[in-house]
């Protein structure tokens, strides 16, 4: 398969207006991914499937990932003049990364037997801008997996033929795979070395029964 840089150049030529970013991956797997903008994501997906050189006809895996609002502190070495001497000083810059939901698609080609190409699409935020285009019309295999992402993460897929909850019951209100979801507190806590579990156990209702 071509490198992601080549694909990016061809993508931006084929889909006018599309902005594609390449996300790095520092782990030994070195599986980098493509991040197109949401408005052109559908056209990008269709290009990836139909392009004769790529022919990514098989969408293997669809995953949601929840990225809550997070403070990222970066250590930057800055050259400063202190008392007339130039020194390298480490400065910590804190930035607030807004939260968003992300859907990751792993694409392969059955015809050319290559892959994976990892495609990511991000929502605007985690509350009211959770729409993104559904890829079910491009790859049928997204149908149940996108329903699952909708159920567990709360991403709304525009253009999905049958967007309902798939694993939880219809009356259920929460999105349990989000990082800030609290499960119903209905189990006893075993002794454990983890402080957060002990903290949870103190709030457990049955703890009030005992003297």
């Amino acid at each position: 398969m071509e490198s992601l840089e080549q694909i990016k150049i061809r993508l931006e030529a084929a889909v006018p207006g599309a902005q594609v970013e390449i996300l790095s991956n520092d782990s030994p797997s070195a599986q980098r991914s493509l991040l197109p903008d949401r408005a052109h994501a559908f056209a990008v997906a269709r290009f990836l499937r139909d392009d004769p050189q790529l022919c990514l006809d098989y969408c293997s895996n669809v995953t949601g990932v929840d990225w809550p609002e997070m403070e990222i502190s970066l250590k930057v070495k800055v050259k400063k003049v202190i008392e007339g001497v130039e020194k390298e000083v480490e400065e910590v810059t804190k930035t607030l990364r807004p939260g968003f939901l992300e859907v990751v698609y792993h694409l392969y080609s059955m015809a050319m037997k290559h892959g994976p190409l990892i495609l990511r699409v991000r929502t605007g935020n985690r509350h009211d801008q959770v729409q993104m285009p559904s890829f079910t019309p491009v790859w049928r295999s997204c149908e149940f997996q996108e329903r699952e992402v909708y159920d567990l993460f709360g991403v709304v897929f525009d253009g999905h033929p049958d967007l309902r909850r798939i694993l939880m019951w219809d009356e259920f209100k929460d999105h349990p795979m989000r990082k800030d979801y609290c499960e119903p507190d209905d189990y006893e806590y075993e002794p454990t070395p983890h402080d957060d579990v002990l903290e949870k156990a103190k709030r457990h209702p049955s703890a009030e029964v005992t003297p």
Partner: protein
Amino acid sequence: MIEEGLKNELAKQGVVLTTLQELYNWGRGNSVWPLSFGLACCAIEMMAASMAKWDIARFGSEVFRPSPRQADLMIVAGTVTKKMAPQVVRLYNQMPEPKYVIAMGACAISGGPFKQGYNVLKGIDRLLPVDIHIPGCPPRPEALLHALITLQKKIETQALTGPNRPRHLDAAAPSEFPVPEFGEHDIVPAMNPRLWKPTPVVR
């Protein structure tokens, strides 16, 4: 009541004496028909127990009934999720008395390894009266046979009359249990307080 010694002596001569209670319980205990009802991994071991190697037929329970109306025993084999819990209770309610429940495996007893899951019921005894618990994840087929033999022994000792008579002979005892409903965050009610109370935490 006839003496045990005399009874044994007569049996040697080919005369079998028994009581109605013994005969009734002997018949019931040796033809416990389970509901063919598998939930998860434990169901495979339940099937293995009914296959040639373990052969549950030796104990009179090879007839797995697909319909609750014909079954005597519910083997809760596997994780009961909150989405499945109402159906499990409904199936139990549809079974005719006398009926028994075996909680097979760690999940059916307490939620097991999946206890912290948001969709996992932490033990079927929150909703149903359980007669036998078998630990294991999953329990081996021998363990299921052991549970069945334990249940047969329990049936054998049940009196027909008196204050300790079993539920099916007591008109006042409940034979159906409330079916929980799907709520917005959990099933409602999450447990039956008549059957199960939270364990007090002692610190």
